[in-house]
């Protein structure tokens, strides 16, 4: 067995290493589909390869503080990137709002909950047995969901029906798979193929603080030039175009919904 292990080890270590520059990006889960498009578009016009890891923004903040080797951090809020700057781990000068996110109510196709007509009231429906939201402890969309529920004076009533996703992507998956009947998720996720045809209701802006999503370059990065270049791409016209296809609106239009 030892011999087999050694053989395997030797052969695997001979795997070719990436020689093109790779940019490592920590991206909030609401960018699950949008970032894929951004990355493939960018790779067409640059020699840099993009490697993305998706997860909850709060989780990334903790990891990056502990030395996780990412070059760029795309958060789903402004709080976490700013915390990293304060901790001296991120470059404050690179801090930029790249998009505004939106919270929606979503149910799978054929759930017959008539979300669009009923809005918040649907959460009290006996058919809404489980309501999925992202974990407010470390997911910005979860924080926003809680705020919205409280503003609508529904939080206490539906508290017992809430299921928490580790990040907003997992939250969407809960609803899409039917484990939860309805969820408060990111608008950007509803543009995915497997989400098409679902019932959707955009939660009015006044119910939650605006989700201003910030990105920042990590100080320990060895690819700062490439990182800044990508960041410029994302905040530039091509990037904004792609983002808005997923409902991630440009930051200047904050206030409009």
């Amino acid at each position, binding site marked *: 067995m*030892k011999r087999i*292990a050694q053989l*395997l080890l030797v052969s*695997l*270590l001979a795997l070719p290493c990436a020689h093109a520059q790779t940019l490592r990006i920590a991206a909030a889960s609401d960018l699950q589909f949008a970032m894929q498009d951004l990355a493939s578009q960018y790779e067409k016009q640059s020699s840099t390869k993009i490697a993305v890891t998706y997860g909850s923004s709060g989780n990334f903040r903790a*990891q990056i503080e502990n*030395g996780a080797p990412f070059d760029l951090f795309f958060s789903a809020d402004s709080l976490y990137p700013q915390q990293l700057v304060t901790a001296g781990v991120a470059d404050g000068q690179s801090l930029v709002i790249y998009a505004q996110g939106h919270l929606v109510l979503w149910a799978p196709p054929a759930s017959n909950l008539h979300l669009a007509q009923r809005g918040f009231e649907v959460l009290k429906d006996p058919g809404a047995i489980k309501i999925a939201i992202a974990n407010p402890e470390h997911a910005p969309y979860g924080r926003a969901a809680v705020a919205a529920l409280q503003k609508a004076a529904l939080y206490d009533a539906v508290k017992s029906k809430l299921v928490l996703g580790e990040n907003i992507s997992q939250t969407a998956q809960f609803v899409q798979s039917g484990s939860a009947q309805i969820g408060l998720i990111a608008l950007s996720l509803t543009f995915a193929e497997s989400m098409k045809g679902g019932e959707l209701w955009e939660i009015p802006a006044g119910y939650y603080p605006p989700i201003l999503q910030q990105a920042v370059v990590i100080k320990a990065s060895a690819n700062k030039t490439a990182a800044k270049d990508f960041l410029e791409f994302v905040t530039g016209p091509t990037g904004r175009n792609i983002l808005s296809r997923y409902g991630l609106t440009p930051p200047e239009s904050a206030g409009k919904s």
Partner: protein
Amino acid sequence: MSVEALLLSLRLACTVAALLLLLALPLAYWLAFTAWRGKFLAEALVALPLVLPPTVLGFYALVALGPRGVLGKLWEGLFGHPLAFTFTGLVLASMLYSFPFAVQPLVNSFESLDRRVLDASSMLGASRMRSFFRIIVPLAWPGVVTGVVLSFAHTLGEFGVVLMVGGNLEGITRTVSIDIYDRVQALDYVGANQTALFLLVVSFAVLSVVYGVNRRVWSPWSGR
């Protein structure tokens, strides 16, 4: 399906199994043959990773291996970069996680050896090393194989610890189990299924080969 993630997982499992074998042999020898009255404490310590949730292990591993932890700082001093979020960090965390799976089968195997056979080896002038490699290990071979196979398989399926300590970095710490998790979150069920199925087949193949090769070794002992 991500071949890269699969190869990474296999590389991790092989490295961990091999390193654990080296560590477990002397430790299991000591545990099986020492007369120290405090042995039960050592046994409990060895068994600890069995009962701790992977997230607890992962947490402590992250703290120890991170830039603020003892090991992390030491490593950074020596090599210039942190230990967490690296393959080496994963290996160390996985070794902790699969430790009892490597040690316990060995201890059981050693303990069930006929003591008189070991006595005979001593009376015939064999040093402790010679007795260990010529008599104990060959006779305890099923335990050795079990230990290696279990630590390999256990590491292959690891998730919680890897996620905490690894950071899910493509090509470096994104093992197969995390890749499957990612696929599911991206609502790519087909991809998730493909990868999971492949992992299942590979694991089964590895186990079959190992048990098949050791069949001949085991039959004479079944009657003892």
